[in-house]
């Protein structure tokens, strides 16, 4: 779940075919966690991971902030409301959107060496 050396999020954008919705700046990742269930993320995601989900509700921002998750990749081409993107920006949370399914995104992340 956690890689040894942090990876720069920016370097993964082309691979994930990800569109940044907020400033991506220099976010670093120490791993990845995949879940669409908020309580599950609250229980098991470690600080510093990229969270991959299809959820787009405001609660995603709350949960990510609570767990010190620096970035959320939203799959299947979904995009949250602009209001929520703004809230994420204020929280310093990076939001990305990709056309890939969660499964495809997971495969790419694995190939990129993220454990």
């Amino acid at each position, binding site marked *: 779940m956690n890689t040894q050396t942090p990876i720069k999020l920016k370097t993964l954008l082309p691979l994930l075919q990800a569109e940044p919705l907020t400033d991506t700046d220099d976010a670093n990742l120490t791993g990845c966690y995949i879940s*669409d*269930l*908020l*309580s*599950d993320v*609250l*229980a098991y995601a470690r*600080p510093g991971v990229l969270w991959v*989900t299809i*959820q787009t*509700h*405001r*609660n*995603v921002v*709350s*949960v990510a*902030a*609570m*767990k*010190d998750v620096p970035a959320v990749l939203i799959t299947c081409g979904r995009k949250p409301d602009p209001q929520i993107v703004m809230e994420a920006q204020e929280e310093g949370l990076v939001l990305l959107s990709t056309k890939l399914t969660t499964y495809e995104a997971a495969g790419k992340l694995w190939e990129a060496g993220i454990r």
Partner: protein
Amino acid sequence: MNPTSSLLAGSGTTEKRRISVAQVLVYELRVRDAMTKEPVTAGPTDTMRTIQHLMKTHRFSGVPITQNGCLLGIVTIEDIINALDKGHINEPTERWMARDPVTLRDHYSLVRAVAEFDRYGFGRFPVVDGSDKLVGIITRGDITDCLVHHLERRAEEAVAHEAVLMAERAADEKARRVVVRTQIKSGDFDSAGKVSQRMRQVLRERGIDPDVRRRAAIIAYEAETNIIIHTIGGQITATILPDKVVIDAIDEGPGIENVDLALREGWSTAGPLARELGFGAGMGLPNIKRCSDVFEIKSEMGRGTHLHAEVMLEKARMVA
């Protein structure tokens, strides 16, 4: 020798404490603080009869005999009794006074004065200053009075000081106590996380360990979402104290039918809308329990549920 014990001996703990303060005082206070200043004196040519009258009117037991302010001797009540007995009451004092009496210096500490009283067994000492001028007279009674007076003053000061300290402490505690309270409406998913967020902010300002902050935030968030999803409404209160965070989530019903079942991981009655938004893993209550140092849940069907959780801050600070 314990000089104060002979003055203020007493039994019981308060007396014992007093003596320790008195012990400090006998070193601090000087003979000049306790003595009677400008004592009544007589001259060497005054008669013993004059002294007898002085003693009667002023209730003295000893009168210093001086000339130009310098001490020549002292006439005590015993000398007067002898004079009456032996028939020389009308003779001048210079014939019958005790010459060159033992004196105390006005700058001596009271502890030294008490030692001198013990050593000589006298009832009184004339007190002289640095140039041997008579400046006062002192008895054991004067020392006791002086100590009692100063003890009372110290006691009053201590009580006043204590009161100020307690008021400051109370104000301090109050300032360190923050209460965050929000009413929560059924189905209001957009408002989830309000208490949690505010609480996290206060804890961050207080420099609380991130892990502890996170645990408190998760408890509040899960409790808030449960009220939104599963109840007709309620209120959540987070009280941030110097040593812990106390979270109380109270709703108006419907209550939990089987609390043991609800606490089981994976058990959920969340409806389709809640599930669509990412709720309904059946992990909220287990999360709360895992994050709490104190966890209680009371529920009554038709009345509602009261969830109480506490997270200790001190313990975490030690770890951090």
